[in-house]
């Protein structure tokens, strides 16, 4: 048992900010002890509403998050924020700039903000983000807000993570129809057209509304479309109201448990995938069989599909 992990686990459960910060790093880096850490805090994890905000780069997610967190904290809630920005596929580095719009929150009692890089996770969410949620819930927050980079179709994991997903768009990006087609309609519980001060907000709102009404919703929730000007605060109170309304809806329709189950399955799956990679893929990389396969694929002798199967089952 890692001493550092138990020490951090105890600190997190006691609500110590420094322990939470260090624990998040341990989990994010998958450093020695991270499994023990997660396991030790796990019995102290308390469910709380998780709100996801997603949308294309620059639509105003952080500006909106800033407002929401500020008003929730004013009503006495303790809030955990996870702000995800993309990792550069070239260098592996990242600029995490969401705090630029949230700096009024820094240092305020009861607000904890962590910026995380996507670190190459395909669906936009890395397993570490699921684990970060658990750490927040053991630390003791009343609500978690997750801001994720929504780049079209890859942004669907957020559904498994968040109870309430708010999809944010803005006019004038030129690819309104494509964005909407790419599956965002299915994932949003609430839709926001931000930057309503810019031209085209009416058109986008109308388009969204008509697309949403033509789609028969699987449950009794009809996703609202709200027009906002986040930079001046216009209609942000309405958004907060709708988010609370959706939370009540989930509770009344007993869907919170379903969401919870989905989240747990997702976390288990992500951990298994990572372990499979470590255990099975890792040892194969660079072996003589690996090199042989790469050569054979290059000579167009046998396909990658053939080789993958052969490496796993040993037979053709």
């Amino acid at each position, binding site marked *: 048992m890692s001493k550092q992990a138990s020490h951090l686990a105890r600190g997190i459960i006691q609500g110590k*900010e420094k322990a939470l*910060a260090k624990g998040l*790093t341990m989990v*994010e880096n998958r450093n020695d002890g991270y499994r023990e850490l997660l396991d030790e805090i796990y019995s102290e994890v308390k469910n709380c509403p998780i709100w996801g905000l997603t949308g294309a780069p620059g639509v105003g997610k952080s500006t909106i998050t800033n407002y929401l967190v500020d008003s929730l904290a004013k009503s006495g809630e303790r809030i955990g924020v996870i702000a995800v920005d993309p990792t550069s596929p070239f260098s592996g*580095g990242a600029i995490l*700039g969401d705090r630029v719009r949230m700096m009024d929150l820094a240092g305020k009692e009861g607000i904890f*903000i962590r910026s995380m890089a996507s670190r190459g996770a395909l669906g936009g969410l890395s397993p570490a983000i699921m684990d970060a949620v658990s750490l927040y819930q053991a630390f003791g927050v009343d609500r978690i807000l997750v801001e994720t980079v929504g780049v079209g179709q890859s942004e669907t994991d957020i559904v498994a993570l968040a109870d309430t997903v708010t999809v944010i768009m803005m006019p004038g990006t030129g690819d309104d129809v494509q964005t909407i087609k790419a599956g965002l309609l299915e994932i949003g519980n609430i839709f926001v057209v931000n930057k309503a001060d810019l031209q085209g907000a009416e058109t986008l709102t109308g388009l969204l509304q008509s697309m949403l009404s033509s789609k028969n919703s699987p449950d009794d929730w009809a996703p609202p479309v709200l027009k906002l000007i986040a930079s001046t605060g216009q209609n942000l109170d309405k958004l907060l109201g709708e988010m609370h309304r959706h939370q009540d809806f989930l509770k009344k329709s007993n869907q919170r448990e379903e969401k919870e189950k989905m989240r747990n399955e997702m976390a288990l799956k992500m951990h298994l995938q990572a372990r499979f990679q470590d255990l099975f893929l890792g040892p194969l990389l660079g072996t003589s069989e690996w090199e042989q396969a790469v050569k054979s694929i290059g000579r167009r002798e046998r396909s990658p599909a053939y080789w993958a199967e052969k490496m796993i089952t040993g037979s053709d």
Partner: protein
Amino acid sequence: MAQNKIRVLIAKPGLDGHDRGAKVLAQALRDAGMEVIYTGLRRTPDQIVSAAIQEDVQVVGLSSLSGAHNNLFQKVANLLQEKGYEDVLLIGGGIIPEKDRKQLEKAGFDRIFSPGTSTEDIVEYIKDKVNE
């Protein structure tokens, strides 16, 4: 498998609006594979230190070109110390006269970089120090 990244906070304390250097540096650090949390302009020492703690960065970098560095940089160094974070690598840069540079390096800063420093040198310095 461990996936460690160097995490750096780049902050602009005070009313100084010159952010070009801070942004150039942030990009250079990202291109060197680091994760850079950029705070934006006009931050107080309290906000900067609170962000550094929550983000659990190994490096805090302050940038100032307006002349207000002595007071603001010193406050950040003191606050970090007060909160038990004297082990972060604390660096600064911008328009900072030689004499102030020396003074700050005595008072808690690991290094102050002057205009014209190549970003490669800064990257290398950070990598060396963090991996020490």
